[in-house]
């Protein structure tokens, strides 16, 4: 997959996962790298960016083993952004889908 393209999609993936419930960074990278091959380090930068933009808030939860975990929670702004990205995504794949289907050689 084109790396540029994948980075844009990552944003949508992160927001979608958080839509299902609060998660901490490692959990998010695990969930996403299970589905696609992606440098997890990049994901932390995506998280930071979305956090800076106010798409989620973060809070720390003490853990019995190891350091406190930083959980992310989607804000209303993030939720709206998610809806808008999701719509764009479906429009996009629908259009690509049309193009693929119309190819008579397939």
């Amino acid at each position, binding site marked *: 997959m084109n790396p540029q393209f994948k980075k844009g999609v990552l944003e949508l993936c992160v927001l979608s996962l958080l839509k299902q419930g609060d998660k901490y960074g490692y959990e998010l990278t695990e969930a996403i790298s299970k589905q696609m091959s992606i*440098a997890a*380090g990049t994901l932390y930068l995506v998280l930071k*960016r979305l956090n800076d933009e106010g798409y989620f808030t973060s809070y720390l939860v003490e853990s019995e083993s*190891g*350091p406190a975990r930083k959980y992310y929670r989607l804000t209303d702004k993030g939720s709206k952004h998610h809806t808008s990205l999701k719509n764009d995504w479906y429009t*996009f794949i629908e259009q690509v889908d049309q193009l693929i289907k119309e190819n008579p050689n397939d």
Partner: protein
Amino acid sequence: MTKEKYMNTLRDRLNQLNIEGREDILNDFEAHFTLGKQNGHSDEELMESLGSIEEILESYENLQSPNDEKILIDGHDQKKEFTNKITTIDISARHADTKITTSKDNGFHVDLYKEGRFLERMSHALIAYQEEDVFYVKVLPLFPHKSSGQYDLSIQVPHDLPNLILNTSSGDGILKNITVQEIRINSASGDFRLLDINSERVDIEVASSDFQLIDVRGDMYIRSASGDFQIEQSNGENFNYQSASGDLKLNGDYETIHLNNVSGDINAQLKTIKQMHISNVSADIHVKIENNNDLLISSSTLNGTCEAYQFGKDLMLKQLGQVQMGEPKTQIKLKTISGDIRLDLE
């Protein structure tokens, strides 16, 4: 590489790049190692899954958050003065068509439209931010694509702009009525029109983009693979043109002219010149020069022809031939392999 070395390298590179919030990023990475270890992964495995530091940082530019405090522009209704700090405006329009004009209120405005509908400035499709002395406007990579609709980027600029850089892939561009120190345009296939531009230097590098430039003042440096150029009523000191198969139609006033081309044809009409070098492989070139009497013309050709005409007189330049007229103040050098060059001197 050990985990410590990995983290140190990351810290150094983040410091070098002066990335904000780098402590947060480092903490996230530390936590990743700790949690990963608890889940039974070795440091090596975790470093591999995080990715190489250069790979991660390379993505930084594309992921960068525009910091609200740094933003000088605000939607389409507020005007902000340019600070002196900005020396360059760098625009990446990708597939969006771009229009750059001078604003009526001397403010700086950036608007993005999709199918004619205004998109919020900070939408996922567009970011604008200042980093040191450069102001960036970027149409983001994912969605703005021809297949997801027509995007239009409208940029209104103050009267006197610093340097302007415009990059597009398939997006077309119109630059109209602007004064700018230097302009650099890079485009793959977008077609451009530049109308009424005041600049010290215009640099254009394109693959297949066609250009129309009318009333452009400033030195011109053009590199084109197959894009055609039509230039009218333009002037400056230097005109430098390199092309593979694009055609050039030039009507302007330049002192020093360099034309290097392979197979694209050239038709030029010039005023007083001081120096002209033409180097050509197989194209047809026709140059008409007004106001020149004192010339030294030398030519070399393998298989083509070089001819010069003046006042109805025919001056045939044979292979490696040389012709002198009056006091040779102006030097013209012509080289062709199999093309035909014709000079008309009035």
